[in-house]
């Protein structure tokens, strides 16, 4: 549990590693110090022993044996009160010894005696005198290859042991307290580093589909946590956008589907209330079919637009001969407009190739022509024309129909906007045609605009960028296999 907590895990690791480092450092310190202290003592007693040995062999030496203390005082500058020494003959009998030994004598081991007889120096630690052990050197004095005497110098280890003990105490106190302080510090640092993570968690937990406008407070630093928070905020915004789109889609769909559903339900229920003649049933079914078609049109359009919103509509990038496309669409519009006694004209002498999606561009043109026919009274005229303008191509669909009032013009590209709802619905419209046109135009890097006067007519202008003309004219224009399956709205 506590191990699931990163800050404790971090601190624990930190403490373990720091503890290992500190203890190994302390052990190293302790042992090197003690060995150098011991070595220093050995060097010191050996040099005293050598001094004494040389004085006993040098006939011109100033001092006699009787005054060893004074003799030592000279070269070392201090009185070696803590140093004990004695001189033995080669058989081990004690000759002179220093005053501070009083009635004690330094012990001599068999090993030291044996070494001495072979001319070797022996270092020993003995417990012979007092509370503290003694460090002692036993050195033979040799003249003309004969051992004439043995010198022993010893010193108490009190200072060394005391120093080492103090060091040990200091280490035993400082290492654990350093660890405690370090662990508190480590915990503090871990907290400081991880608190923003907790904050992110808290925000994330509070976010539901209804509170997607919440954000994590960003800190100025662009460190890992800052980047995490930023990424997280981005994710929330994207989520928010999709939620909004879904809500919008649902609201639009349910609102727009309600009228056809009311009609369907009502007509069927009234129809079923009594026995009717076949013609009556036929009439009801025909009307029902109309509503069902209208509904599927709305659903298709809405689905297209919501896919487009989410960036899931992928346009193909082919070279499209717009001149040819306009002629095709013109032919199609002509047959439909005949039923309403509307003349359709075309003027496209310009050769224009654009890069884009043939099906979508066709849909764009057909939607505009569909509107032209729908909103122009019988006997009216529609003209579709194409013109090159620099590196752009301009496309017009002009009618002399009912026109659009200036106050409505800014809204006609909005979803579901219809000036006369009843009229548009009777013609099977749902107010999505122009918003789809706008999307297609903009997806091709172009734009669409309208100029209109009530009772006089409207001009819809589409501007698209021309394809760079290094490659030949429309040779690589491809026919999509999907063409046949695709149903153009309204036609």
């Amino acid at each position, binding site marked *: 549990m506590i191990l699931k907590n990163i800050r404790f895990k971090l601190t624990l690791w930190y403490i373990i590693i720091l503890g290992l480092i500190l203890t190994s450092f302390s052990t190293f310190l302790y042992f090197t110090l003690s060995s150098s202290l011991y070595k220093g003592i050995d060097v010191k007693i050996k040099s005293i022993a050598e001094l004494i040995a040389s004085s006993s062999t040098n006939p011109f030496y100033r001092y006699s044996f009787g005054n060893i203390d004074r003799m030592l005082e000279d070269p070392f500058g201090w009185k070696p009160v803590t140093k004990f020494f004695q001189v033995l003959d080669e058989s081990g009998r004690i000759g002179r010894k220093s005053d501070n030994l009083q009635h004690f004598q330094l012990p001599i081991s068999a090993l030291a005696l044996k070494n001495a007889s072979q001319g070797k120096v022996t270092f020993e630690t003995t417990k012979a005198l007092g509370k503290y052990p003694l460090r002692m050197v036993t050195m033979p004095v040799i003249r003309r290859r004969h051992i004439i005497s043995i010198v022993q110098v010893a010193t108490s280890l009190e200072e060394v042991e005391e120093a080492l003990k103090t060091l040990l105490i200091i280490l035993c106190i400082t290492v654990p307290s350093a660890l405690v302080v370090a662990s508190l510090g480590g915990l503090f640092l871990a907290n400081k580093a991880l608190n923003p993570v907790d904050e992110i968690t808290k925000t994330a937990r509070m976010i539901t589909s209804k509170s997607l406008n919440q954000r994590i407070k960003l800190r100025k630093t662009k460190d890992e946590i800052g980047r995490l928070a930023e990424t997280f905020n981005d994710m929330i915004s994207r989520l928010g956008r999709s939620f909004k789109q879904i809500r919008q889609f649902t609201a639009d769909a349910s*609102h727009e589907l*309600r*009228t056809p*559903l*009311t*009609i*369907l*339900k*009502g*007509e069927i*229920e*009234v129809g079923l*209330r*009594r026995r009717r003649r076949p013609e009556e049933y036929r009439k009801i079914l025909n*009307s029902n079919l109309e*509503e069902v078609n209208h509904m599927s049109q709305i659903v298709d359009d809405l689905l297209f637009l919501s896919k487009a919103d989410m960036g899931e509509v992928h346009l193909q990038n082919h070279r499209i001969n717009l001149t040819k496309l306009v002629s095709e669409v013109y032919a199609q519009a002509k047959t439909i407009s005949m039923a309403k006694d509307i003349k359709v004209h075309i003027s496209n002498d310009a050769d224009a190739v654009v890069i884009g999606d043939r099906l979508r561009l066709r849909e764009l043109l057909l939607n505009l022509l569909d509107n032209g026919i729908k909103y122009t009274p019988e006997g009216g005229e529609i003209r579709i024309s194409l013109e090159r303008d620099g590196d752009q191509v301009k496309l017009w669909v002009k009618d002399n129909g009912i026109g659009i009032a200036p106050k409505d013009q800014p809204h006609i590209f909005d979803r579901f906007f219809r000036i*006369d*709802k*009843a009229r548009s*619905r*009777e013609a099977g419209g749902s107010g999505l045609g122009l918003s789809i046109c706008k999307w297609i135009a903009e997806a091709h890097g172009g734009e669409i605009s309208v100029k209109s006067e009530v009772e006089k007519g409207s001009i819809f202008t589409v501007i698209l960028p021309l394809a760079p003309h290094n490659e030949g004219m429309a040779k690589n224009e491809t026919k999509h296999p999907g063409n046949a399956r695709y149903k153009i709205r309204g036609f």
Partner: protein
Amino acid sequence: MRILVVEDEKKVASFLKKGLEEEHYAVDIAFDGEEGLFLAQINEYDLIILDIMLPKLDGMEVLRRIRIHGSSVPILMLTAKDSTENIISGLDSGSDDYLTKPFAFAELLARVRALFRRKMKEKTDFLRVGDLSLSTSTHQVKRGGREVELTAKEYALLEYFMRNPNRILTRTLITEHVWDYHFDPSTNVVDVYVNYLRKKIDRGFEKKLIHTIRGSGYMIKDEP
């Protein structure tokens, strides 16, 4: 019983008219708010079915203006928005009931009948005058326990009579409540239908229920 339907969606208006007429109601249609308000003011309707989203004048405004002129005609609102906010404000400004689209036609009929009952302070779908009874839900008419077959118009006429017993009903009142606005007032259709009705209801019975009030009109009553 004469009903005004104010609804801009032509197909909705048309199935409402057809269905209600088949239930023997006289139905007028208005396709926008202004027309609806105009019709409501010049005719005396027994019920108005009013859509909220209307061109020219929205349903709420029509409702408000009808009530301002002191009319207490029952009004059933149709709303495409099912937001409670709308419904509450509708009920506040004086509508009697509401239905959200899409609605079941049978439910609409039940609500219409309930509103008529409420207007007439009746408790059941059965209207009774003496030994004559009429069910507004099944359209069954019985005199002395025997079923009487009536045509649609005869039924509508009888229902109007039975909702207003012991009251003198002038020819104008009768045409206003039983016929729609295509009725030509210069004919004597009312008298003709009252006579048809008399033949089916009163013939063979000693006690006559439908009486002629000379110079004014007709009345249905139990006493002689």
